């Protein structure tokens, strides 16, 4: 806060920051997990954290930065997951004379076609990379389209009304996918061609590295986007839309842009997830996992704080993964009291949301009020005007 101008206290400021402390604690926790429980668990945590970092950051763009009550995050994730489950495999099937039509998603055909495509991908690195990039691009386009579509009826609504509309839209595609077999196999799911088979021996490690790099790029992109005049406009719409309109901002367009960018990123997250999992199961994309978990991550980390969101995702993913891994072995005793440990994961989510709302409404790393422009430049300009020695 203050003392930014005093170089002596700057180091101290850095060390006292919540995010640094939490970040170091998380690194320590992951190291302990790796040493005691093995690397594969750490990799599982990292892949989950990477996917949910992308999804939750996209949610934070819409909720934290723009003030849209996005209760339908799952919709865009599904758009990305389904389009990657349905399209790129079919394209390759078509090009190679394999069944690509309605029958592609038929379970009796799909389990033979997709491995054949994966074998094809495994034979060529450029083809695999191209397939991966094409999938992400496709997902982003589908996500942006879905973001635009949902924005049309919903954008003029505010707060609760908008939230309920988006919540309702959210489940729409899941049920379409679950019941309309030609899309992604309906109840039986489709396999997704594996562009990582080309590095078969170390597939898991490579997937994790790619996912973490992608999450990091999304973080960098959103940091740049929100610390720009565009980000300032988002914050203006969030803080007071009438005043923003009078200041010349087209609030409908800005909300639409935010929804489209956010949904495109969430769709990339969904695409990454199905490519990693190797299958796309419609019924797996529940609002619980893909809307409410991201909300819990975001609320814990700090709504509006990109850095906080990353840490929130990491913390809760560690907790969630450990619970899922050990709930039956370590928490089996709960059954004697009539509590099924299957539900521990969801109980944790409820508990986190309640505790955050009660004790840390701004999250672990509260969003700060600071100049959108680089601090150094602002201070320099102020000094030139003759009032540099002000509150910093």
């Amino acid at each position: 806060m203050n003392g930014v101008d005093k170089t002596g206290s700057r180091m101290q400021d850095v060390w006292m920051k919540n995010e640094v402390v939490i970040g170091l604690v998380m690194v320590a926790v992951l190291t302990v997990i790796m040493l005691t429980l093995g690397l594969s668990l750490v990799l599982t945590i990292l892949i989950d954290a990477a996917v949910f970092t992308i999804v939750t950051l996209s949610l934070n763009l819409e909720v934290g930065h723009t003030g849209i009550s996005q209760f339908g995050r799952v919709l865009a994730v599904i758009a990305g997951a389904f389009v990657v489950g349905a399209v790129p495999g079919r394209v390759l099937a078509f090009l190679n004379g394999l069944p690509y039509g309605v029958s592609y998603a038929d379970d009796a055909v799909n389990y033979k076609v997709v491995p054949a495509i994966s074998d094809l991908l495994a034979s060529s690195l450029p083809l695999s990379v191209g397939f991966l990039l094409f999938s992400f691009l496709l997902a982003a386009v589908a996500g942006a389209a879905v973001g635009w579509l949902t924005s049309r009826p919903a954008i003029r609504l505010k707060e609760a009304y908008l939230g309920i509309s988006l919540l309702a839209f959210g489940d729409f595609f899941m049920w379409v996918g679950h019941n309309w077999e030609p899309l992604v196999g309906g109840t039986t799911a489709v396999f997704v061609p594996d562009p990582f088979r080309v590095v078969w021996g170390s597939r898991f490690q490579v997937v994790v590295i790619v996912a973490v790099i992608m999450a990091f790029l999304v973080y960098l992109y959103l940091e740049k986007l929100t610390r720009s005049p565009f980000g300032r406009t988002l914050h203006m719409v969030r803080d007071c839309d009438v005043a923003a309109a009078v200041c010349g901002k087209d609030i409908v367009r800005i909300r639409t842009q935010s929804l489209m960018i956010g949904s495109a990123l969430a769709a990339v997250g969904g695409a990454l997830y199905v490519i990693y999992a190797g299958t796309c199961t419609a019924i797996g994309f529940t609002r619980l996992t893909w809307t409410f978990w991201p909300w819990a991550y975001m609320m814990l980390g700090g709504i509006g704080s990109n850095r906080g969101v990353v840490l929130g995702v990491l913390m809760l993913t560690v907790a969630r993964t450990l619970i899922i891994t050990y709930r039956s072995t370590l928490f089996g005793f709960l059954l004697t009291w009539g509590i099924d440990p299957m539900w521990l994961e969801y109980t944790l989510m409820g508990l986190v949301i309640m505790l955050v709302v009660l004790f840390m409404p701004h999250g672990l790393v509260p969003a700060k009020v600071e100049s959108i422009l680089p601090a150094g430049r602002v201070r320099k300009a102020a000094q030139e005007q003759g009032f540099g020695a002000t509150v910093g």
Partner: protein
Amino acid sequence: MKTLLATEGLTKAFGGLVAVNRVSLEVRENSLTLLIGPNGSGKTTLLNLCTGVLKPDSGRVVFRDQDITGLEPHQIYELGFVRTFQIPMPFIALTVLDNVLGAMRSPGEDPFRAVTKAAWIEREEEHMERALAILEKVGLERHWNMPSASLGAAQLKMLEVARGLASGAKLIALDEPIGGVDPARAGDILTHLTELKKEGITFLVVEHRIDIAAPFADHMYALDRGSIISHGPPDSVLNDPKVIEVYIGRDEAC
């Protein structure tokens, strides 16, 4: 002098209450037009109708010979007409400086160009200089880097004025710019508006503190219960029996 803004038979009712009733007024270019009237006489509603915050039931708003009735506020901003709010509406999670910068147009507002700083940083720095100069004029220079939420009531008023000035508009409608401001500062602000008038900016000012504002006005409109009851040079309006009656009440003894 040319007419910059004109309303023709502007009417707006909220249920049974006719807040603005067939109001026709003219704001001439390069003038400071003062709009007075008791509480509830429809001054703010009139501003809302002119700037697109509310849509009129009937009547027209013409700005620079263009019909702007029913346009959105941001479209009216593009044409060069902005307003400030009587109850300050700051962007609470932005700094004071960013509040002012937000009222300007920046190439970095485009989401594609936003990520490449080189595309907008120069323009932003120019804006920053202008914004800091404006903040100095309204007496907020010491608070430029503070969250706007930390300002007091009168300072928030000044932030509203600063945002209006920053927009670079031809016509700025100020809704009670000196309400709650000490008389010395209020005089400074009005003097500053007079200086800006010389640069070609026109002002439409809603104000209760007639004693301070009237000397700066070129033209005056008095509103009561949604209708214009008097208009003309400030002196004649202030001496109009209808205006005196509205403000002081009828002398029943006479």
